[in-house]
């Protein structure tokens, strides 16, 4: 069970890493227009 002493701090760090990713996603507006992006692939460039 000693491995838990390593894994738990690692998990905590992982949470912060993932939160960083989510922060990026929110700040760049990834969640703002959920419908339109799906249809953009059908548009001509």
């Amino acid at each position, binding site marked *: *069970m000693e491995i*838990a*002493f390593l894994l*738990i*701090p690692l*998990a*905590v760090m992982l*949470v912060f890493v*993932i*939160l960083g990713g*989510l*922060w990026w996603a*929110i*700040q760049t*507006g990834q*969640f*703002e*227009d959920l*419908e*339109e992006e799906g*249809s*953009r692939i*059908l*548009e*001509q*460039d």
Partner: protein
Amino acid sequence: MTDSLTAGNTNPWQGLDVQSEWERFSQRHTQEPDIWTSHVWVDNMHCAACSGRIEQSVKQMHGVLGVHASAASKRVKVIWDANVVHPSQWFANLNAIGYPALPVNEYHAVTDRTRDQRKMLWRLVVAVFCMMQVMMYAYPTYVSDSNDITPDMIQLLKWASWLLTLPVMLFSSTPFLSQAWLSLRQRQLGMDVPVALGIIVAFVISTLATFAPGGWWGDVTYYDSLTMFVSFLLCGRWLDVKLRNRTAGALENMMRRLPHAVLKKNEAGEWVQIAASNIDVGDVLYVRPGEVFAADGKLIAGNTSVDESMLTGESEPVLKSTGAQVIAGSGNLTSVVEMQVQQVGEGTQYHALVNLMASASTEKPGIALLADKVAQPFLWGVLLAALFAVIFWWTTDPVKAVMSAVAVLVVTCPCALSLATPAAMLASAGTFAKGGVLIRRLQAIQALSEIDTIVFDKTGTLTENLQQVVLLDSHPDWNSTLLLNLTATISRDSLHPVAKALYTFAKKENAAEHLPMQDWQEIVGGGISATLVTQDQQSIALKLGNASFCEVHTEADAGVQRLVYLVAGHTVLARFGLSEQTKPQAKAAISQLISQGYEIQLLSGDRIAAVKNLAAKLGIQVALGLQKAENKLQNVKALQQQGRKVLMVGDGLNDGPVIAAAHTSIAMGTGVPLTQAQADMVVMGNDIGVLVSLISHCKKTILIVKQNLLWAALYNAAGVPLAIMGLLPAWLAGLGMAASSLLVLLNALRLTKWQKGVLAERAKVA
């Protein structure tokens, strides 16, 4: 491309080419001072193909660095270089390809709102993510025997949980903490005070238990209860912010009424383009057909028909000749005129109406305040109960004392007051929004469930603004197809609503519109004259217009609102009748509402005969014509004095004050944005049938709110005594709170099913 660039003097957007003007809808690039990002709104961009065409066309322009068109929000973002290109050029380009654009003046407001929404989502994401992790760390201590985990491991889990609770505490819960602090500073007890108190106490106790276990505070932590609690609350807040933004955004998408640039006569007598904000009293402005008057004033040259429907709510165009008064916000329909400005900005009638609406809206009884008033005693009760628990247990067991208090705070706060009502209302509001009904105030749901009287406006609400055309009779010697062809050709180029209606009618009957015609002329207040050239080079003088213009006898009422003649010389070739068309669902909706026991009234600014006629057709008992805004307001106030709760369903701007004074109000989506901004609900479509199911769904919503409140009351009645007695550990209180919230939410979710329209409602009755 070059065509639009050299649009020159005729480019109506030149007024935007001043930096102070374009700054209103653009943002400077952070590094390059000449690069700007502008946001414009394109009304008729409906699909992905439209946005593709826009992007393609504007991207080709020299000096345009990037274009992004979004069909969903009807917005186009253009990045451009001020050294190379000016806004008027790409505005002209958009116009040339068939997508007239408007600057989004509220650009900054939009970004503010987006920022708010992002921040709230970010708070929620942080709270939920940390909550999940904290739960995971809390789980072992709940399920294992005390011997299964080593004390070291428990300590490690506590530290990890503390670390993960820190962002929730310092960042996610700041809205509650700051709100609580604000209301305390105003010496009021807000809903957030017990919430904040619970959060802080639980965190402090848990922190002490983590880093200095063994004091009077014991060694039990409550990070899981705390984070879950904050997550649930934020969930509600985020839905609320999102819903409000969506409603506001949709309203903003409506046309701005007044023009941004106008043509003004300078000292030299030349027409120059100036920004609308620079108009002064005494200026002479040049107004083309299809444009909107930017200020109040009088006509000094030209005659025209004016569309004042935005201000009066009625569709009939008004004839204005030289010397007549015109008002800002009304539309010039038929010919070029010059006007002298007498009032600008705040002094105009347009602004007066806006201000009238604003003042009427402040008279509104605040149901929100009432809810706060009911909440006050409850909140005091909660705090007193918590205090009682502390005092009761302190001498025997300080830990138990504090934790009982926290249990009281946690077990009570969210479900009963913070969640029960908004959860149900938000569920309904979201459902309505999907079905095309926007809600500005959540209280409107309650208000709508209480009404007993419905006052309708006529035009645009019960009837279509478009005029319905019937061919009454035609000359026996003339082929009716030929007559329709003539009508289509002669009416094709006119902007007058009647001519437009006739043209649409003829086209629907498959009429051709390319007969050889000469000397086409439109006479204001009369009609159109033209000369038809036949195949054997004969000329026939044709006229399309009203009786006096066509020199025929005025007839008695033919059962239509307006008669239009097509004559050749003095021979009447055809007679058209025009009338307003009743909306398809109107009759069914009205009879349903009457059968459900609602008192229905019709108040309209239109002629009495037309109003009575429509009322008889729809089965409405009380109908009044020639009603101005003040009359309508008086009528509604009189009804309210009889103790009636009035729902106002309106459309035009002159309904604004009435809409604000009524118990609650609904605006049909074709009306002006200002009215909609005042109305509690906005029906985006044109379908009046929605009304019946809307009211019944609101009643259902209130029923579910009551169920939720009853459940919460029972839960609190059981939970609080248990918590005070110390029988409820904080984690169980948290769990009870969560389960209770979940139950409330699930109950509210039943409201997401809404069958729209009068037909669905009828099916249910049958």
